[in-house]
């Protein structure tokens, strides 16, 4: 191990040890998740008669007062109800399925208890976060492991979503309505829709791509997908990104304000916009050689495009930093409890 690596290891061990000590042996605490039984909220099916009308009558001021009460250290639901005792929030909520479903609670909230599975999950999430960050130092087995898990879980999740949100309602529910009724709790069994056999057949053909023989048949569903996309996009791009953009660019270059006075600032902006658009379009038109006057106009277009890319670069930087800030906030707030910006643990911000 190099000297530099030893220094880094020592820094990590000392700071990690301090954080563990702080969490384990002080009041500050460390990475736990609390849960409470789900209390079903009144819904349209379960509400008391007239509750909907009562809710409609709550004035704006009362809603703002309730919102004000729901902030701070107190558990939101309790505080909101206290701030609006006469409103519909006071309607007793029937508890359906209580004791079987749990939801996240605040530390110290009535009925809250530590959830072992979620706490384990929190530490696992912290491990995964650090494992991915470890790639910044160098490639290592922790990173490779996390990466492998990411690929597997992502693909598995996509397939589950594809089954339950696409294949089930659009295919299985139409061809086997009785199964659908059992799995969704629908009151009535819908009639079988035989036309759904066509997309089923196309779907099976698509899966033939993986078969050792007959893979060419997968071109049929692929052609359907490409053809549908081509048709949809031909219309939408021409309508929204061509015609509408040209229409929005036909603007007066001399702008007058409400009093009829010439507005030099707005006029200048309009001229700059049109000059930029036309010159950038000239740059994209390669059928004419970029020489002479045309070349100079195209060069102005390049300048506009460079400014556009500069702005895009700055925005991209902003986006990436926001994502990093969110991950660090997870580590500092949810896991290490170093900060409490949302006052979830009553330790202040």
């Amino acid at each position, binding site marked *: 191990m190099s000297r530099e690596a030893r220094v880094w290891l020592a820094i990590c061990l000392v700071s990690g040890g301090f954080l563990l000590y702080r969490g384990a042996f002080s009041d500050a605490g460390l990475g736990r998740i609390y849960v409470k039984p789900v209390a079903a909220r009144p*819904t349209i099916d379960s509400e008391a008669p007239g509750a909907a009308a009562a*809710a409609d009558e709550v004035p704006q001021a009362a809603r703002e007062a309730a919102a004000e009460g*729901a902030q701070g250290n107190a558990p939101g639901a309790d505080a909101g109800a206290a701030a609006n005792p006469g409103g519909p*929030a006071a309607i007793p909520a029937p508890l359906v399925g209580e004791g079987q479903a749990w939801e996240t609670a605040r530390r110290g909230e009535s009925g809250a208890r530590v959830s072992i599975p979620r706490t384990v999950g929190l530490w696992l999430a912290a491990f995964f976060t650090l494992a991915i960050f470890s790639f910044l130092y160098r490639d290592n087995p922790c990173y490779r492991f996390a990466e492998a898990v990411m690929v597997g879980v992502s693909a598995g999740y*996509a397939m589950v979503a594809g089954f339950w*949100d696409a294949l089930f309602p659009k295919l299985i529910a139409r061809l086997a309505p009785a199964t659908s009724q059992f799995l969704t709790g629908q009151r009535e069994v819908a009639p079988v829709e035989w036309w759904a056999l066509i997309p089923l057949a196309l779907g099976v053909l698509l899966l033939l791509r993986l078969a050792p023989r007959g893979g060419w048949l997968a071109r049929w569903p692929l052609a359907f997908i490409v053809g*549908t996309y081509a048709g949809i996009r031909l219309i939408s791009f021409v309508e929204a990104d061509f015609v509408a953009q040209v229409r929005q660019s036909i603007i007066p270059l001399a702008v007058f304000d409400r009093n009829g006075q010439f507005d030099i600032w707005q006029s200048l902006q309009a001229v700059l916009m049109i000059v930029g658009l036309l010159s950038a379009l000239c740059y994209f038109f390669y059928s004419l050689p970029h020489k002479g006057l045309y070349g100079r106009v195209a060069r102005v277009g390049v300048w506009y495009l460079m400014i556009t890319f500069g702005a895009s670069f700055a925005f991209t930087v902003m986006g990436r930093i926001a994502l990093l*800030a969110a*991950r660090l906030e997870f580590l*500092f707030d949810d896991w290490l409890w170093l900060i409490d910006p949302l006052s979830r643990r009553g330790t202040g911000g």
Partner: protein
Amino acid sequence: MGWLQNLDRRWIYLAMLLAVAIPQLLQVRFPEQPTPLVQAVFDKVEQLPEGSRVLLSLDYGPVSAGELEPMTAALARHCCLKRHKVVFMTLWPDGKPAVESTITKIINVEFLEHQYGRDHVDLGYKAGKEVVIKTIATNLRLEFEQDNRGTPLDELPLTAGINNLEDFELLVSISAGFPGLKEWVQYASSPLGVPLAVGATAVQAPQAYPYIPGQMLGILAAIKGAAEYEVLLGNRYPAYATPTRQDAVRRMAPQFSAHLLIIALIVLGNLSALWQRWKGPNP
């Protein structure tokens, strides 16, 4: 200056880590000045008559939640404060938890009088990307016969009278890419003329400007757009001017220091290159 030429990239990574972490640990906050494009979205939500129907499509997954979650929260709060009827949906398979958490962590906690089915409905996710938008533009029930909980839309008071996108007073897409704001412009706001407001990631935002104002009434661009919206909400409803309800304002502090770091790195990189050129090529 020569040492800059051989600077290990990991020192730059460490500098970036500190630039983001220190303002977060110190809980620094900076004031925000709302810009016209955010103001336009705020004014639209504010001026809609109470009880207007708003479609909130959360087209993002966990990857962009750090950027987009705060603006979703701010918009959902604003709609609830105005007692608008909010219909949630997502075009991203991993966008379902974003809808669920907005309902359970924002609406169920802060707006106790709001009832599922009457004031808000979760339609969930549908595969098909822009084809879903194109279909619900004319027939909502072809895509969503039931809500995400399995209740037929006709049995929910909010959705019973909604047949297509033209039945909404406002469409909002909080978008992280494809499918997202572009598709909502192409298949909803352009052909139908229904007002569309957009929240977008920083990467996507610059590409959306040509749509304003003809096809899009405003945009909440990146975390700053969300911060501006939170400030506007706080100015109008003082209960929402508290730090615990201004996630985006809080996250603007790391942006401040990290942007300065990026500028410093570009300047240092150029100085280093100039130094190298002045010194001449290495023997």
